[in-house]
């Protein structure tokens, strides 16, 4: 399934222009940008809620918009989740959930209401009315109702923005679960980098009605020249595969761990490399009994990385990765005066995947799939003194110590 969109929409504040394609199995595409940049307008235009939209939208071989010919919203196979949890106030939760489901033909009913209700633990809410629910509960039901239309494309407009932090924490894992359970393409609008990092696979970055950058989130996060990417913290995202064979070899004490009641370690191999990481999952991971996740995403904050010339023995840090220094770039060059006083900060980009011909330590030498998988990179922040003291240069090989890893 592919989604292609080439549209124009004249607004009072700006002219919305979007031209993009989402490939097969695109997962969660985050539409990211500052408030008022046109994210919501673009999402509404795709859904058909902005009648003045012109251009072309094709989803799954169906033409939703072709010049002036537009398919009515109700005929488009989409789910839409509004920012303010929108439910019908005169219907109870059960009838809200089934509203869309009852209006699709039988052969399209792949997701069954019972399964979804069980998966999202909504049983206790079925007979209540929207006015009796919390904001978080309402949004969970709105998401479930949209999913039950068995859409080809799910559009979500900042579904967490109107919620307090507790409700957000309640819904984020829920969204993650849905994304992995139903592999349907999702376009997710947000202005929160945190949500983008946790949920997204790829990103369309918008400014003033235009899409100014697109790509994998892990890549865009490192392009600090882009608006919205100059945050205090720099999240690094790495894709990894669970390594079942190495599991027992790397953790001789796993039996003891289990007896002590702590979670066992899981060994992961970074995609595109042969480097291994040892990760302690949270209590709720894997998500369900018997559910095996083979591909995972790891999150490592830049401040949890330590750079070293050598592999360190006798340290509490068990995860050490061989890297090559890709790029050393001064941070926010516009603040020259300030930097000179405080000592300049640099962003150091580290490459984790090397070409096989390079001379490397034996442990990381046998790279097999580096050429088919885009290079994974880590970013960390160093001061001028640190760079000077270590005499770091671009192209140099080094080791990075990873202090903390979270599983997404």
């Amino acid at each position, binding site marked *: 399934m592919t989604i292609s969109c080439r549209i124009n929409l004249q607004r009072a504040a700006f002219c919305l222009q979007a031209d993009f394609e989402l490939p097969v199995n695109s997962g969660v595409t985050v539409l990211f940008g500052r408030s008022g940049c046109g994210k919501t307008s673009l999402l509404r235009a795709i859904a058909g*809620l902005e009648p003045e939209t012109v251009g072309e939208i094709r989803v799954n071989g169906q033409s939703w918009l072709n010049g002036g010919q537009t398919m009515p*919203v109700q005929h488009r196979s989409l789910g839409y989740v509004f920012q303010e949890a929108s439910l019908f106030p005169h219907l109870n939760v059960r009838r809200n959930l089934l509203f869309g489901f009852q209006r699709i033909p039988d052969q399209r009913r792949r997701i069954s209401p019972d399964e979804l209700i069980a998966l999202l633990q909504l049983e206790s809410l079925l007979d209540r*009315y929207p006015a009796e629910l919390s904001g978080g509960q309402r949004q969970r039901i709105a998401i479930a*109702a949209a999913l039950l239309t068995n859409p080809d494309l799910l559009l979500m407009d900042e579904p967490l923005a109107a919620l307090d932090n507790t409700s957000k924490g309640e819904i984020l894992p829920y969204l993650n679960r849905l994304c992995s359970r139903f592999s349907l393409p999702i376009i997710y609008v947000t202005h929160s980098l945190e949500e983008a990092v946790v949920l997204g696979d790829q990103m369309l970055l918008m400014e003033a009605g235009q899409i100014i950058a697109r790509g994998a989130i892990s890549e865009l996060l490192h392009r600090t020249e882009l608006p919205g990417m100059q945050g205090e913290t720099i999240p690094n995202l790495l894709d990894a595969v669970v390594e079942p064979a190495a599991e027992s070899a790397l953790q001789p004490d796993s039996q003891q761990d289990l007896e002590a009641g702590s979670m066992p370690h899981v060994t992961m191999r970074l995609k595109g490399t042969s480097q291994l990481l040892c990760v302690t999952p949270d209590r709720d991971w894997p998500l369900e009994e018997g559910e095996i996740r083979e591909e995972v995403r790891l999150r490592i904050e830049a401040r949890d990385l330590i750079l070293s010339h050598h592999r360190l023995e006798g340290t509490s840090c068990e995860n050490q990765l061989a890297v090559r220094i890709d790029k050393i770039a001064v941070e926010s060059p516009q603040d020259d005066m300030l930097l000179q006083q405080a000592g300049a900060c640099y962003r150091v980009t580290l490459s984790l995947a090397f070409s096989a011909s390079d001379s490397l330590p034996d442990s990381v030498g046998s790279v097999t799939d580096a050429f088919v998988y885009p290079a994974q990179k880590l970013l960390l922040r160093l001061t001028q003194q640190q760079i000077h003291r270590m005499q770091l240069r671009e192209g140099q090989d080094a080791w990075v110590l990873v202090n903390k890893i979270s599983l997404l």
Partner: protein
Amino acid sequence: MVLSATVLSPQDLNALWLTIKLAVISTGLLLMLSAPLAWWLAHSRSGLKVLIEALVTLPMVLPPTVMGFYLLMLLGPEGWLGRALEQWGIGHLAFSFSGMVLASMIFSLPFVVPPMQNAFASAGGRMLELAATLGASRMDAFLHVVLPLSRRGVLSAGVLSFAHTLGEFGMILMIGGNIPGSTQVASIAIYDHVESMNYAAAHSLSLVLILLSLLLLVLVFALNRRFTPQMAG
């Protein structure tokens, strides 16, 4: 009603029955015909909207006798509409029940359209978008979302129209005449009784109208209370 049957003359009972029949039929027809108009007024951005809104409100400010007079001119055997109706074999509408229904509908228009228009406006917007994204056509959404959400507005429109028709006088007198048994309604019958100094009969009929109106309002408030818990939020 048992009580009133003992005090009311057959002629008064007939007038009362005619009044209720008139109120039910004209209110029902008016609600059905006003719904599309109120829907259009609630969602249209046309420049014509202002004019239509003014026309809908006009019967509220015009003296009922003026409206009744022109309606009689229009619908009578000499009026162009009345003559056209006669040519089609329907007959003119002066001094007929149909003419009275038409008059009541025009008279109650300003009490029916605005409450429905307000209800439709607040039940539209996001709720319509939500219904569309869930696969409901416009008509489907109107019947299953907008109407249930607007039931308070529709109910109060209906009650206002009904109560208004019960008390209608000038316009009905003009178009219906005062033919006992066929076009004499309760309010006109009361006037006749007062004219002929038959105060007892006027009292009985008035009392019945008061009780009827009170009963109606109690019913409305009870229904409104029942709708409220689900409508909140």
